[in-house]
């Protein structure tokens, strides 16, 4: 048999196979893209029941805003307005020209944090900086600031930080303005204060498109690192504000379950649903809370963790360059050592 003929037959058949492929859907209309967005949220979002949201009513309301003058910019605004109805910081949309996620959960609230004061009055002049931790001894109390969980910092960095702080009468962990990141970071950090494997939270998972289709509660265990003992077993104050969100919110939930911990400041911002991502026909990315997380009492942490001691940053103290929340934390810890 002629090799050239076989080669030609091979190429012809390969070309025919391409005809089997279904045409793509990149040129879908704005209406079809909005319908897909509505459907993605309808099937994946987990807080309809908890927040009492009638999602079915929003589809037609926002579909009516699309007209012949709608361009990509206007369509993006329609999408983000519809998503904002969920009042969820873990819900958002991203296009090549804009990015949006809900942020009123902290913009409408007191900020209760001023990093300039922390840096100049409490960390300066020579802070300990290990991994993502910034620390200093404040009036005999250890102060550790941790601003983000977006990158993983091992517990060895906290160990060396505490070693360098030396003898302390208590420990302040300041996670204000920490918007979260990796849940693993929350696990790693809380494990520094655990002597044994402990259930600190519960997870549920979205099992179907229905708004109430959730799995059972799965206990979430956090255990200590085998290679180390408890890094610190004295009293701890955890400082929080409304911008403590997502993984940092979970860390606050974890810490609230520990008896030696006092949470001080403002209620955290929440973000109790682990998000999943999807996309529209036009390639824009969409994400929303899908798998809810609960505290030790199986209560949702979506609305945040309330502090044991509510303290707001006073304007007078801020004007004087002092953080009265840190000062209150120092007082609480020193009082516990009397």
């Amino acid at each position, binding site marked *: *048999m*002629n*090799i050239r*003929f*076989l080669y030609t*037959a*091979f190429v012809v*058949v*390969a070309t025919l*196979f*391409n005809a*089997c*492929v*279904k045409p*793509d*859907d*990149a040129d879908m209309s704005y209406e079809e893209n909005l319908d*897909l967005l509505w*459907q*993605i949220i309808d*099937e*994946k979002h987990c807080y309809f029941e908890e927040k009492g949201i009638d999602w079915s009513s929003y589809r037609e309301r926002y579909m009516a805003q699309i007209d012949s003058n709608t361009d990509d910019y206007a369509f993006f605004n329609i999408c983000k307005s519809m998503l904002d109805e969920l009042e969820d910081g873990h819900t958002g949309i991203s296009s*090549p020209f804009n990015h949006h996620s809900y942020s009123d959960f902290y913009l409408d609230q007191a900020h209760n944090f001023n990093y300039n004061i922390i840096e100049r009055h409490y960390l300066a002049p020579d802070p300990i900086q290990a991994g993502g931790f910034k620390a200093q001894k404040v009036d005999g109390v250890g102060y550790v600031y941790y601003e983000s969980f*977006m990158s993983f910092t091992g517990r060895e960095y906290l160990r060396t930080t505490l070693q360098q702080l030396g003898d302390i009468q208590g420990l302040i962990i300041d996670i204000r303005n920490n918007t979260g*990141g*990796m*849940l*693993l970071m929350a696990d790693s950090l809380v494990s520094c204060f655990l002597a044994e494997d402990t259930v600190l939270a519960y*997870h549920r*998972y*979205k*099992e*179907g*498109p229905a708004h109430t*289709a959730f*799995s059972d509660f*799965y*206990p*979430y*265990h956090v255990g200590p690192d085998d290679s180390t003992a408890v890094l610190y077993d004295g009293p701890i104050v955890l400082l929080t504000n409304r911008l403590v969100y997502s*993984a940092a919110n979970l860390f606050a939930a974890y810490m609230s379950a520990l008896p030696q911990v006092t949470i001080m400041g403002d209620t955290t911002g929440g973000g109790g649903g*682990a*998000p*999943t*991502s*999807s*996309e529209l*026909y*036009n*390639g*824009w*990315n969409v*994400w929303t809370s*899908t*798998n809810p997380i609960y505290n030790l009492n199986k209560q949702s942490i979506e609305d945040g963790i309330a502090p044991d001691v509510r303290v707001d940053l006073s304007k007078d103290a801020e004007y004087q360059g002092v953080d009265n929340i840190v000062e209150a934390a120092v007082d609480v810890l020193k009082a516990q050592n009397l």
Partner: protein
Amino acid sequence: MSRFILRFLLFFCGLPVGLMAGETINYNYKFVQLGGGVCQTQNTHLSPLVFQGMNVSLQQGSSRGWGQQLRTSTLLVNLNAYSHSNDESSLQGTDFSYYYNRYYRPDWGLPFGIDCYVGGGYLGFVDVLTSPDNINNALYYTFNNSLNLGFFLAKKWDEYFFSNEFSMPLIGIYSASEYASSFPYRLYHDDIPLFARTHIGSLNVNWVMMNRFNFDVIAHTKKKKMYNIRFSYTITYGRQKLNNIIYNKALHQIGVGLLFNTKHHEY
């Protein structure tokens, strides 16, 4: 040559006119082949969109026949790259399939002397898909083990040998991404016990089918050297519906390879 083309086209049209019947065929050989083709997938864990793509594949396997029995095994590895025409989205995937089937030849007396074998065996199928555009759940996996029903048809015609192997699942045990595999939150939810991730599938929720058509031929070079060359067309179709995740995959590929140890693969 025109005679060959006519017969080739008639065979593809389902009109095997003039096939010779009643010859003894031995099926003992090993093969290895490279191929490529087109593929299509939808995986709602990663994206609701339907992606088209290209793939390259490597197949190797063997076939051994004796008496009224036949045994085949195939290892198939595919590298798949998918894209979407919105120019914003892409997927990458790798899948592995292993088929092991035992067939028996009933006395059905098919027309044109076509050999027909019926049997079944095992399928192991793993597909891993990643979406670099997905922020939170960029990875999907499915791992299938199933008992299969299979058919093997074969026909020798002059110095050409046609065979078709079809395999479909009867029942399977499988595991797949069923909840969020969230980046950067957590890739693997170790709080879910392993048995909760493993499912006994019904055909409604889990299906992996394969059909491979082979066309073996002896090719001669100008130096009169002889090769046993295989051309094949393989279709793999997978479908799964688990919790909130729908997974569909269709893969068409053609391959070219060589047969080895063909001293009993008589023409």
